[in-house]
């Protein structure tokens, strides 16, 4: 059997999706089901004196209306921030209560006030209009830049400051700056984004009063953690009587990592009324209530020697958390951001300060890349600016500062095991035909277009990380992963993973690994995930962790299967276990032709005996069955890196900016399925192009989200994009046995600075993301006017 690892194996999961047989949460309908509709705050900030449900309760078809008072009466707990951050002065972060239904105050437009349950969705929606809420509208804090100077929106949280966190050696950094030959400064805004998975969120609660078991079907990236939070913190249902199922999930990008208020309310309500309750978000509800991403304001400075060698970095960031602290909201702008501000450069000293603030906007949490796109945007814009100001070629400036020896202990946190940054830079220079760029610029100019080129050489940290380490710096849970390999008696295999696939193709990639390890045909291997009743507790999918951590757990479980198989095979073949080799699905006695297939071993393990003779194929002390579980705690992060080069053309009259060429050369270590990895890069890069050119969550002064539909929030469409050039280099990770590094977020991390550096190179004006036609056009007009006045 040929090796599958490294092959473009077509996806096992595709057929159901191509024929309309996918089963997403909204596709599930249960007998006797009711429908939920949420009453949401139309105000960004208000206190609530009364929620009057009397009229709504009498509306046709209404089964139940529940409010924050009912929630409090049932002692349902609030949603949590799962990572404790400690401020520079030693104080703990400040986190406001976050009840799933508002308790006297609302803190963003879309905040949850009440839930109406009715026999039909239309009846629920109509009755929701009759719920009368007495709001006293309060002055909202909307802008990130206003938060620190505004009155607190949450009682007792002075300056709206959740924490003031520092990383690095401030005094050494100040010293490096005092001696610097050149200091390059930059001010940046990392625009607020809305993840917009194509499947709107949905939840269905189903309580069985006989067994007292509660099931929650939900659009979620990590069902076990959702169950843990809803059980341990919200106190809805004990964990052992609570099943969370995340069936087919239509994209996540981070926005479906968390248990949301709707999940808590739907689970609790279903239990309360003892009937299934179904809720499916309308798209505008998704815009208002799915966690948003990014939203940073940053000032950064780079200390450089005249020869272009970087000697220090200072970063000051204000990160907007929105109205409450969501589950991973506090780690995203700290430990997922701060350590990465160094990029892939050898920078001897650095200091990063992050102030996280509350505003009356939708909570912000991890979105594809989570902290790393923000860090990469900062350092790559800064480095490009430094190269330009110092008259050094952008590639040469970067190359001069690359980390070149591995392992490399960075001055902040990370110990990078492997990489070859010149290799991907050089390959990208060649593929993008960098040396002839100026000719292309001239050619564009002859057509009246401004052409620019931009680079992004990025580093990311995936596969987070030893549990003891992350818990020592505030994580509420460990970040290990589980796997179970369950052979069936007939020789086929169910593989259980604690990760979750919602587009990444785990059903295929993980089966490729198992097929190679155990020598079982891929069609006889089935991946099971997304159901807390089926597999062991796992930590879900985010942070490009699934293959590096989950894949390793699977590998380890396979190793245990092989170990047991050797014992059984040795007994059956009358040899010693250490005389048995395992290869391509066969246990073979060394230097002989005596062998047993793994299928025969599985059969013997489940049917250990034969007619007419009392004789077991299992050696003494070996239990029947062939099923092994492994938990893997990573020993380090993995460190993908790469070079992305973007070329844009700007129409001087309209400001329309088009990406005309895009080259990505990434080092993901070992690649299991190149076809799937390419797909991840395409998707990530396009989301990054979206951030750079189109996407922006905009609030008006009162805190109304004015980009709350696909009519108003622009995402890349097929006709906005060029054909991307994708290639790889590979330095296998040393921190996991597969040598894999993670590829899911790289594109979204690398692309925004590559595109913006290109835009700025084209128009020679510093503008912020997104570089919309309007913004670029205005900048060009203003420049023209200024130039005229100066002349």
């Amino acid at each position, binding site marked *: 059997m040929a090796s599958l690892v490294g092959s473009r194996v077509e996806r096992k999961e*595709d057929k*159901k999706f191509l024929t309309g*047989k996918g089963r997403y949460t909204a596709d599930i309908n249960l007998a006797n089901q009711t429908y939920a509709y949420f009453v949401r705050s139309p105000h960004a900030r208000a206190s609530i004196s009364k929620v009057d449900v009397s009229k709504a309760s009498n509306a046709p078809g209404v089964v139940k209306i529940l409010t924050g008072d009912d929630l409090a009466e049932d002692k349902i707990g609030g949603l949590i921030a799962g990572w404790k951050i400690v401020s520079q002065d030693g104080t703990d972060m400040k986190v406001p209560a976050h009840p799933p239904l508002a308790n006297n105050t609302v803190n963003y437009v879309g905040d949850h006030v009440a839930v109406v349950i009715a026999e039909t969705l239309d009846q629920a929606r109509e009755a929701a209009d009759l719920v009368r809420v007495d709001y006293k509208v309060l002055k909202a804090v909307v802008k990130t830049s206003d938060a620190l100077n505004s009155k607190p929106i949450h009682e007792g949280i002075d300056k709206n400051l959740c924490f003031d966190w520092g990383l690095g050696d401030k005094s050494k950094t100040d010293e490096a700056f005092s001696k610097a030959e050149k200091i390059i400064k930059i001010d940046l805004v990392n625009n607020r984004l809305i993840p*917009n998975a*194509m499947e709107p969120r949905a939840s269905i609660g189903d309580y069985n009063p006989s067994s007292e078991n509660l099931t929650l079907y939900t659009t979620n990236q990590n069902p076990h953690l959702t169950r843990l939070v809803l059980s341990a913190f919200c106190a809805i249902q004990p964990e052992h009587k609570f099943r969370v199922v995340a069936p087919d999930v239509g994209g996540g990008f981070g926005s479906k990592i968390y248990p949301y208020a709707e999940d808590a309310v739907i689970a609790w309500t279903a239990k309360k009324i003892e009937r299934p309750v179904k809720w499916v978000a309308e*798209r505008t509800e998704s815009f208002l209530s799915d966690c948003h991403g990014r939203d940073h304001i940053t000032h950064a400075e780079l200390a450089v020697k005249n020869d272009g060698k970087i000697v220090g970095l200072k970063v000051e960031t204000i990160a907007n958390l929105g109205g409450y602290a969501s589950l991973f909201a506090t780690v995203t702008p700290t430990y997922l951001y701060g350590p990465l501000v160094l990029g892939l450069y050898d920078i001897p000293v650095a200091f990063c300060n992050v102030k996280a603030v509350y505003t009356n906007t939708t909570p912000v949490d991890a979105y594809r890349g989570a902290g790393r796109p923000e860090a990469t945007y900062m350092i790559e814009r800064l480095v490009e600016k430094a190269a330009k100001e110092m008259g050094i070629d952008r590639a040469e400036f970067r190359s001069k500062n690359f980390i070149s020896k591995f392992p490399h202990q960075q001055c902040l946190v990370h110990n990078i095991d492997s990489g070859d940054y010149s290799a991907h830079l050089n390959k990208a220079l060649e593929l993008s035909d960098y040396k002839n760029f100026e000719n292309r610029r001239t050619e564009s100019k002859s057509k009246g277009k401004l052409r620019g080129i931009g680079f992004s050489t990025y580093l990311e940290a995936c596969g987070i990380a030893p549990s003891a380490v992350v818990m020592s710096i505030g994580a509420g849970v460990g970040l290990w992963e589980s796997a179970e390999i369950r052979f069936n008696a007939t020789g086929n295999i169910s593989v259980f993973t604690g990760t979750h696939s919602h587009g990444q193709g785990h059903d295929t990639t993980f089966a490729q690994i198992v097929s190679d390890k155990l020598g079982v045909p891929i069609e006889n291997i089935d991946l099971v995930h997304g159901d807390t009743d089926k597999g062991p507790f796992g930590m879900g999918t985010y942070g490009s962790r699934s293959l590096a951590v989950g894949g390793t757990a699977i590998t380890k479980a396979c190793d245990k299967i092989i170990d047991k198989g050797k014992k059984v095979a040795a007994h059956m073949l009358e040899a010693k276990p250490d005389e048995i080799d395992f290869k391509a699905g066969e246990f073979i006695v060394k230097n002989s032709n005596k062998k047993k297939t793994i299928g025969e071993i599985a059969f013997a393990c489940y049917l250990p005996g034969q007619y007419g003779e009392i004789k077991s194929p299992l050696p003494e002390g070996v239990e029947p069955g062939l099923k092994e579980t492994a938990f893997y705690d990573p020993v380090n992060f993995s460190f993908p890196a790469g070079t992305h080069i973007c070329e844009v053309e700007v129409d001087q009259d309209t400001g329309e900016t088009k990406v005309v060429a895009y080259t990505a050369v990434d080092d993901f270590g070992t690649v299991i399925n190149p076809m799937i990895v390419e*797909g991840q890069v395409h998707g990530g890069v396009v989301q990054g192009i979206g951030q750079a050119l189109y996407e922006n969550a905009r609030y008006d002064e009162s805190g109304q989200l004015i980009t709350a539909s696909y009519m108003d929030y622009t*995402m890349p469409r097929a006709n906005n994009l060029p*054909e991307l050039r994708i290639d790889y280099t590979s330095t296998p990770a040393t921190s996991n046995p597969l040598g894999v590094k993670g590829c899911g977020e790289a594109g979204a991390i690398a692309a925004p600075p590559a595109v913006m550096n290109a835009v700025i190179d084209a128009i020679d004006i510093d503008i912020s993301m997104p570089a919309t036609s309007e913004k670029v056009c205005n900048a060009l007009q203003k420049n023209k006017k200024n130039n005229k006045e100066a002349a």
Partner: protein
Amino acid sequence: MQRVSLVINGNKVSREIEDRTLLSSLLRDILSLTGTHVGCDTSQCGACVVLVDGKSVKSCTLFAADIDGSKIITIEGLANNGKLHPIQEALKKHHGLQCGFCTPGMVMSVVDLLKNKKNPSDQEIRDWLKGNICRCTGYQNIVAAVKEAASKM
């Protein structure tokens, strides 16, 4: 309420429905044809595209009552006796889908394109697909799949 009679995937269907019932709702909620998805409610994303009398249409903004007597093909009815349509085959081969949510609408949209254009160029494909949003793939492999499907039809 009114009675609507349609032929859906070759089967005659007749139902008494509310006037406000959208075609997407008739398909998903009343007929349990959940392969047609609703992604945006504003006819922007195209996850809900089906063929009505051979033309690709966004079913989330069409009253079922307005198309009484029409023939409808949904994603469930595209494969012919288990044989996938060339675009379904090509999307699998070229990894033109990831989470699969936009896929049914994307497929139905492409079926309409390929009926009217024998060998569309990259740009023609990209322009046609601007009414179908995919958040996962970056469209590149979808374009490749459409080209291949065109060559096989």
